[in-house]
Protein backbone atom coordinates (compact mmCIF):
# COMPACT_ATOMS: atom_id res chain seq x y z
CA UNK A 1 0.00 0.00 0.00
CA UNK A 2 1.21 3.48 -0.88
CA UNK A 3 -0.48 6.54 0.57
CA UNK A 4 -0.94 9.85 -1.20
CA UNK A 5 -2.31 13.03 0.28
CA UNK A 6 -4.96 14.16 -2.21
CA UNK A 7 -7.84 16.12 -0.67
CA UNK A 8 -7.15 19.27 1.33
CA UNK A 9 -9.32 20.02 4.39
CA UNK A 10 -11.45 22.58 2.53
CA UNK A 11 -12.44 20.08 -0.17
CA UNK A 12 -13.42 17.52 2.47
CA UNK A 13 -15.36 19.95 4.67
CA UNK A 14 -17.09 21.28 1.54
CA UNK A 15 -18.06 17.79 0.40
CA UNK A 16 -19.60 16.69 3.68
CA UNK A 17 -21.24 20.06 4.41
CA UNK A 18 -22.86 19.89 0.98
CA UNK A 19 -24.08 16.38 1.78
CA UNK A 20 -25.55 17.60 5.08
CA UNK A 21 -27.11 20.75 3.58
CA UNK A 22 -28.66 19.01 0.59
CA UNK A 23 -29.95 16.07 2.64
CA UNK A 24 -31.45 18.44 5.23
CA UNK A 25 -33.36 20.44 2.64
CA UNK A 26 -34.36 17.52 0.43
CA UNK A 27 -35.69 15.31 3.22
CA UNK A 28 -36.01 17.03 6.60
CA UNK A 29 -36.76 20.74 6.65
CA UNK A 30 -40.21 22.19 5.99
CA UNK A 31 -40.15 23.57 2.41
CA UNK A 32 -41.91 26.77 3.50
CA UNK A 33 -39.70 27.44 6.52
CA UNK A 34 -37.04 30.10 7.02
CA UNK A 35 -34.63 27.30 7.94
CA UNK A 36 -35.09 25.78 4.46
CA UNK A 37 -34.19 29.14 2.91
CA UNK A 38 -31.15 29.68 5.10
CA UNK A 39 -29.78 26.22 4.45
CA UNK A 40 -30.34 26.89 0.74
CA UNK A 41 -28.30 30.11 0.91
CA UNK A 42 -25.61 28.33 2.90
CA UNK A 43 -25.35 25.67 0.17
CA UNK A 44 -25.08 28.42 -2.47
CA UNK A 45 -22.32 30.10 -0.44
CA UNK A 46 -20.50 26.76 -0.11
CA UNK A 47 -20.65 26.21 -3.87
CA UNK A 48 -19.40 29.76 -4.47
CA UNK A 49 -16.45 29.12 -2.16
CA UNK A 50 -15.77 25.82 -3.93
CA UNK A 51 -15.72 27.61 -7.30
CA UNK A 52 -13.24 30.13 -5.89
CA UNK A 53 -11.18 27.31 -4.39
CA UNK A 54 -11.21 25.69 -7.83
CA UNK A 55 -9.23 28.67 -9.09
CA UNK A 56 -6.84 29.35 -6.21
CA UNK A 57 -6.74 26.09 -4.22
CA UNK A 58 -4.06 23.36 -4.25
CA UNK A 59 -3.51 21.22 -7.35
CA UNK A 60 -6.10 18.48 -6.79
CA UNK A 61 -8.81 21.05 -6.00
CA UNK A 62 -8.17 23.19 -9.08
CA UNK A 63 -10.55 22.88 -12.04
CA UNK A 64 -7.68 23.33 -14.47
CA UNK A 65 -6.13 20.14 -13.14
CA UNK A 66 -9.17 17.89 -13.33
CA UNK A 67 -11.69 19.11 -15.91
CA UNK A 68 -11.27 16.32 -18.47
CA UNK A 69 -11.08 16.41 -22.25
CA UNK A 70 -12.73 13.76 -24.43
CA UNK A 71 -9.45 11.87 -24.60
CA UNK A 72 -9.24 11.45 -20.82
CA UNK A 73 -12.88 10.33 -20.63
CA UNK A 74 -12.36 7.72 -23.34
CA UNK A 75 -9.17 6.62 -21.57
CA UNK A 76 -11.06 5.84 -18.39
CA UNK A 77 -13.76 3.97 -20.35
CA UNK A 78 -10.98 1.97 -22.05
CA UNK A 79 -9.57 1.02 -18.64
CA UNK A 80 -13.03 -0.14 -17.60
CA UNK A 81 -13.56 -2.09 -20.83
CA UNK A 82 -10.19 -3.87 -20.68
CA UNK A 83 -10.28 -4.33 -16.88
CA UNK A 84 -6.96 -2.50 -16.50
CA UNK A 85 -6.26 -1.17 -13.03
CA UNK A 86 -5.39 2.44 -13.46
CA UNK A 87 -6.37 5.09 -10.99
CA UNK A 88 -6.17 8.86 -10.77
CA UNK A 89 -4.60 10.64 -7.82
CA UNK A 90 -7.08 13.51 -8.09
CA UNK A 91 -10.58 13.31 -9.55
CA UNK A 92 -11.04 10.75 -12.32
CA UNK A 93 -12.40 12.12 -15.63
CA UNK A 94 -15.87 10.61 -15.22
CA UNK A 95 -15.89 11.70 -11.57
CA UNK A 96 -15.05 15.23 -12.64
CA UNK A 97 -18.06 15.26 -14.99
CA UNK A 98 -20.25 14.33 -12.03
CA UNK A 99 -18.74 17.18 -10.00
CA UNK A 100 -19.59 19.67 -12.74
CA UNK A 101 -23.11 18.26 -12.94
CA UNK A 102 -23.66 18.43 -9.18
CA UNK A 103 -22.22 21.93 -8.76
CA UNK A 104 -24.35 23.25 -11.65
CA UNK A 105 -27.46 21.53 -10.30
CA UNK A 106 -26.90 22.95 -6.80
CA UNK A 107 -26.59 26.46 -8.24
CA UNK A 108 -29.77 26.00 -10.30
CA UNK A 109 -31.68 24.68 -7.26
CA UNK A 110 -30.46 27.64 -5.19
CA UNK A 111 -31.37 30.19 -7.85
CA UNK A 112 -34.89 28.80 -8.45
CA UNK A 113 -35.36 28.56 -4.69
CA UNK A 114 -34.37 32.20 -4.26
CA UNK A 115 -36.68 33.20 -7.13
CA UNK A 116 -39.63 31.73 -5.24
CA UNK A 117 -39.00 34.22 -2.43
CA UNK A 118 -39.03 37.27 -4.74
CA UNK A 119 -42.13 39.30 -5.59
CA UNK A 120 -41.60 38.83 -9.29
CA UNK A 121 -41.65 35.00 -9.20
CA UNK A 122 -43.55 34.20 -6.01
CA UNK A 123 -46.23 31.60 -6.79
CA UNK A 124 -45.13 31.24 -10.42
CA UNK A 125 -45.67 27.62 -11.41
CA UNK A 126 -42.73 26.97 -13.68
CA UNK A 127 -40.24 28.18 -11.07
CA UNK A 128 -41.60 25.79 -8.48
CA UNK A 129 -41.75 22.94 -11.01
CA UNK A 130 -38.16 23.62 -12.04
CA UNK A 131 -37.02 23.72 -8.41
CA UNK A 132 -38.61 20.33 -7.72
CA UNK A 133 -37.39 18.69 -10.93
CA UNK A 134 -33.86 19.91 -10.26
CA UNK A 135 -34.00 18.38 -6.78
CA UNK A 136 -35.13 15.06 -8.28
CA UNK A 137 -32.30 15.35 -10.79
CA UNK A 138 -29.84 15.99 -7.95
CA UNK A 139 -31.15 12.97 -6.04
CA UNK A 140 -30.72 10.74 -9.09
CA UNK A 141 -27.21 12.17 -9.57
CA UNK A 142 -26.30 11.48 -5.94
CA UNK A 143 -27.44 7.87 -6.26
CA UNK A 144 -25.36 7.49 -9.43
CA UNK A 145 -22.42 9.22 -7.70
CA UNK A 146 -22.51 6.85 -4.72
CA UNK A 147 -22.93 3.79 -6.94
CA UNK A 148 -19.99 4.93 -9.08
CA UNK A 149 -17.79 5.53 -6.01
CA UNK A 150 -18.51 2.03 -4.71
CA UNK A 151 -17.95 0.53 -8.15
CA UNK A 152 -14.73 2.42 -8.87
CA UNK A 153 -13.41 1.60 -5.40
CA UNK A 154 -13.92 -2.09 -6.10
CA UNK A 155 -12.56 -1.85 -9.63
CA UNK A 156 -9.33 -0.03 -8.75
CA UNK A 157 -8.88 -1.29 -5.19
CA UNK A 158 -8.67 2.28 -3.88
CA UNK A 159 -11.21 3.12 -1.17
CA UNK A 160 -12.48 6.46 -2.50
CA UNK A 161 -15.01 7.13 0.25
CA UNK A 162 -12.29 6.74 2.89
CA UNK A 163 -10.08 9.17 0.97
CA UNK A 164 -12.82 11.82 1.10
CA UNK A 165 -12.76 11.49 4.92
CA UNK A 166 -9.02 11.17 5.62
CA UNK A 167 -7.81 13.13 2.59
CA UNK A 168 -5.44 10.30 1.68
CA UNK A 169 -5.74 7.74 -1.09
CA UNK A 170 -4.29 4.33 -0.33
CA UNK A 171 -3.20 2.65 -3.53
CA UNK A 172 -2.50 -1.10 -3.88
CA UNK A 173 1.06 -1.85 -5.03
CA UNK A 174 0.05 -3.06 -8.48
CA UNK A 175 -2.26 -0.29 -9.57
CA UNK A 176 -1.04 2.19 -12.20
CA UNK A 177 -1.33 5.90 -11.65
CA UNK A 178 -2.77 7.91 -14.52
CA UNK A 179 -0.91 11.13 -15.09
Amino acid at each position, binding site marked *: MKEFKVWDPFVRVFHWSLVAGFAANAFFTDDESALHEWIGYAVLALVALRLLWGLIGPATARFASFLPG*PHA*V*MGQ*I*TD*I*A*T*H*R*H*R*THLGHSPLGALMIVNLLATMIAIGVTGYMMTTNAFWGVDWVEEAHEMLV*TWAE*VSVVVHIAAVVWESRRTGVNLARAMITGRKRLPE*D*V*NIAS
Partner: protein
Amino acid sequence: MNGRISDNAGILVMLIAVQSLCAAFFLWDVIEDIRPGGMASLTNLHIAVEAAAALALVSAIVFETRYLMRLMQRKAHLESQVSIAAGAFHEIMLAHFDAWGLTPSENDVALFAIKGLPIAEIARLRGSAEGTVKSQLNAVYRKAGVSGRGGLLGVLIDELVAGPLVEAGRET
Protein backbone atom coordinates in the same frame (compact mmCIF):
# COMPACT_ATOMS: atom_id res chain seq x y z
CA MET B 1 -9.87 2.24 -39.28
CA ASN B 2 -8.62 3.47 -35.97
CA GLY B 3 -10.13 6.89 -36.56
CA ARG B 4 -13.47 5.39 -37.42
CA ILE B 5 -13.58 3.35 -34.23
CA SER B 6 -12.76 6.25 -31.95
CA ASP B 7 -15.34 8.47 -33.68
CA ASN B 8 -17.95 5.74 -33.25
CA ALA B 9 -17.05 5.31 -29.60
CA GLY B 10 -17.36 9.04 -28.89
CA ILE B 11 -20.75 9.19 -30.58
CA LEU B 12 -21.84 6.07 -28.74
CA VAL B 13 -20.88 7.57 -25.38
CA MET B 14 -22.96 10.66 -26.14
CA LEU B 15 -25.84 8.49 -27.31
CA ILE B 16 -25.76 6.41 -24.15
CA ALA B 17 -25.63 9.55 -22.01
CA VAL B 18 -28.63 11.14 -23.76
CA GLN B 19 -30.65 7.93 -23.76
CA SER B 20 -29.88 7.40 -20.07
CA LEU B 21 -31.31 10.84 -19.35
CA CYS B 22 -34.46 9.97 -21.30
CA ALA B 23 -34.72 6.56 -19.64
CA ALA B 24 -34.35 8.13 -16.19
CA PHE B 25 -37.14 10.57 -17.02
CA PHE B 26 -39.50 7.91 -18.41
CA LEU B 27 -38.83 5.55 -15.51
CA TRP B 28 -39.50 8.34 -13.04
CA ASP B 29 -42.74 9.09 -14.91
CA VAL B 30 -43.82 5.44 -14.77
CA ILE B 31 -43.03 5.24 -11.05
CA GLU B 32 -45.08 8.39 -10.42
CA ASP B 33 -47.97 6.80 -12.37
CA ILE B 34 -47.78 3.54 -10.47
CA ARG B 35 -47.29 5.01 -7.00
CA PRO B 36 -50.93 5.90 -6.21
CA GLY B 37 -52.47 2.56 -7.28
CA GLY B 38 -49.60 0.14 -6.70
CA MET B 39 -48.71 -2.65 -9.11
CA ALA B 40 -52.39 -2.98 -10.03
CA SER B 41 -51.97 0.17 -12.17
CA LEU B 42 -50.01 -1.94 -14.62
CA THR B 43 -53.34 -3.41 -15.77
CA ASN B 44 -54.09 0.04 -17.16
CA LEU B 45 -53.14 -0.32 -20.82
CA HIS B 46 -51.63 3.17 -21.10
CA ILE B 47 -49.39 2.72 -18.04
CA ALA B 48 -48.43 -0.80 -19.09
CA VAL B 49 -47.36 0.37 -22.54
CA GLU B 50 -45.42 3.24 -20.98
CA ALA B 51 -43.63 0.87 -18.61
CA ALA B 52 -42.83 -1.54 -21.43
CA ALA B 53 -41.43 1.28 -23.58
CA ALA B 54 -39.27 2.52 -20.71
CA LEU B 55 -37.92 -0.97 -20.04
CA ALA B 56 -37.20 -1.45 -23.75
CA LEU B 57 -35.16 1.75 -23.71
CA VAL B 58 -33.24 0.58 -20.64
CA SER B 59 -32.40 -2.74 -22.30
CA ALA B 60 -31.26 -0.88 -25.40
CA ILE B 61 -28.89 1.15 -23.19
CA VAL B 62 -27.54 -2.01 -21.56
CA PHE B 63 -26.93 -3.48 -25.01
CA GLU B 64 -25.22 -0.29 -26.23
CA THR B 65 -23.03 -0.16 -23.14
CA ARG B 66 -21.87 -3.72 -23.74
CA TYR B 67 -21.20 -2.84 -27.36
CA LEU B 68 -19.25 0.24 -26.27
CA MET B 69 -17.10 -1.91 -23.98
CA ARG B 70 -16.30 -4.22 -26.91
CA LEU B 71 -15.52 -1.26 -29.11
CA MET B 72 -13.17 0.21 -26.52
CA GLN B 73 -11.37 -3.12 -26.12
CA ARG B 74 -10.79 -3.20 -29.85
CA LYS B 75 -9.75 0.41 -29.93
CA ALA B 76 -7.30 -0.14 -27.08
CA HIS B 77 -5.65 -2.85 -29.14
CA LEU B 78 -5.80 -1.27 -32.54
CA GLU B 79 -4.11 1.95 -31.51
CA SER B 80 -0.69 0.95 -32.83
CA GLN B 81 -1.88 -1.10 -35.81
CA VAL B 82 -1.39 0.72 -39.07
CA SER B 83 -0.57 -1.81 -41.77
CA ILE B 84 -3.27 -3.79 -43.56
CA ALA B 85 -1.58 -7.04 -42.62
CA ALA B 86 -1.54 -6.10 -38.95
CA GLY B 87 -5.20 -5.09 -39.22
CA ALA B 88 -6.15 -8.40 -40.85
CA PHE B 89 -4.23 -10.38 -38.25
CA HIS B 90 -5.96 -8.38 -35.58
CA GLU B 91 -9.40 -9.18 -36.97
CA ILE B 92 -8.59 -12.89 -36.95
CA MET B 93 -7.27 -12.65 -33.44
CA LEU B 94 -10.33 -10.85 -32.08
CA ALA B 95 -12.67 -13.26 -33.87
CA HIS B 96 -10.89 -16.14 -32.16
CA PHE B 97 -10.99 -14.40 -28.80
CA ASP B 98 -14.75 -13.99 -29.24
CA ALA B 99 -15.19 -17.62 -30.24
CA TRP B 100 -13.17 -18.81 -27.24
CA GLY B 101 -15.27 -16.66 -24.92
CA LEU B 102 -12.40 -14.78 -23.32
CA THR B 103 -13.24 -12.31 -20.58
CA PRO B 104 -12.20 -8.66 -21.11
CA SER B 105 -9.16 -9.20 -18.87
CA GLU B 106 -8.12 -12.39 -20.65
CA ASN B 107 -8.64 -10.65 -23.97
CA ASP B 108 -6.26 -7.87 -22.96
CA VAL B 109 -3.66 -10.20 -21.48
CA ALA B 110 -3.76 -12.52 -24.51
CA LEU B 111 -3.11 -9.59 -26.79
CA PHE B 112 -0.09 -8.41 -24.85
CA ALA B 113 1.20 -12.00 -24.77
CA ILE B 114 0.89 -12.35 -28.54
CA LYS B 115 2.75 -9.08 -28.94
CA GLY B 116 5.55 -10.81 -27.06
CA LEU B 117 5.54 -8.85 -23.82
CA PRO B 118 6.94 -10.63 -20.77
CA ILE B 119 4.55 -11.37 -17.91
CA ALA B 120 6.12 -8.74 -15.65
CA GLU B 121 5.54 -6.07 -18.28
CA ILE B 122 1.93 -7.15 -18.86
CA ALA B 123 1.32 -6.99 -15.11
CA ARG B 124 2.78 -3.48 -15.01
CA LEU B 125 0.69 -2.26 -17.96
CA ARG B 126 -2.51 -3.66 -16.50
CA GLY B 127 -1.81 -2.65 -12.93
CA SER B 128 -2.18 -6.17 -11.58
CA ALA B 129 -0.01 -8.79 -9.88
CA GLU B 130 2.13 -11.18 -11.95
CA GLY B 131 0.31 -14.14 -10.39
CA THR B 132 -2.98 -12.74 -11.67
CA VAL B 133 -1.60 -12.36 -15.19
CA LYS B 134 -0.21 -15.91 -15.10
CA SER B 135 -3.56 -17.41 -14.13
CA GLN B 136 -5.35 -15.29 -16.75
CA LEU B 137 -2.89 -16.48 -19.39
CA ASN B 138 -3.41 -20.10 -18.33
CA ALA B 139 -7.16 -19.59 -18.73
CA VAL B 140 -6.52 -18.24 -22.25
CA TYR B 141 -4.41 -21.29 -23.17
CA ARG B 142 -7.02 -23.63 -21.74
CA LYS B 143 -9.86 -21.97 -23.66
CA ALA B 144 -7.80 -21.95 -26.84
CA GLY B 145 -6.82 -25.57 -26.34
CA VAL B 146 -3.08 -24.87 -26.58
CA SER B 147 -0.24 -25.41 -24.18
CA GLY B 148 1.51 -22.07 -24.31
CA ARG B 149 2.33 -18.84 -26.04
CA GLY B 150 3.79 -20.54 -29.12
CA GLY B 151 0.68 -22.65 -29.58
CA LEU B 152 -1.53 -19.61 -29.29
CA LEU B 153 0.41 -17.78 -31.96
CA GLY B 154 0.40 -20.92 -34.13
CA VAL B 155 -3.39 -21.16 -34.15
CA LEU B 156 -3.73 -17.57 -35.29
CA ILE B 157 -0.99 -17.67 -37.92
CA ASP B 158 -2.48 -20.87 -39.37
CA GLU B 159 -5.71 -19.06 -39.95
CA LEU B 160 -3.99 -16.11 -41.56
CA VAL B 161 -2.07 -18.15 -44.11
CA ALA B 162 -4.53 -20.98 -44.68
CA GLY B 163 -8.00 -19.81 -45.41
CA PRO B 164 -10.99 -17.53 -45.20
CA LEU B 165 -11.47 -15.32 -42.19
CA VAL B 166 -13.47 -16.89 -39.39
CA GLU B 167 -17.01 -15.66 -39.07
CA ALA B 168 -17.77 -16.57 -35.49
CA GLY B 169 -18.47 -13.64 -33.22
CA ARG B 170 -17.86 -10.99 -35.85
CA GLU B 171 -20.06 -7.98 -35.46
CA THR B 172 -18.59 -4.94 -37.10
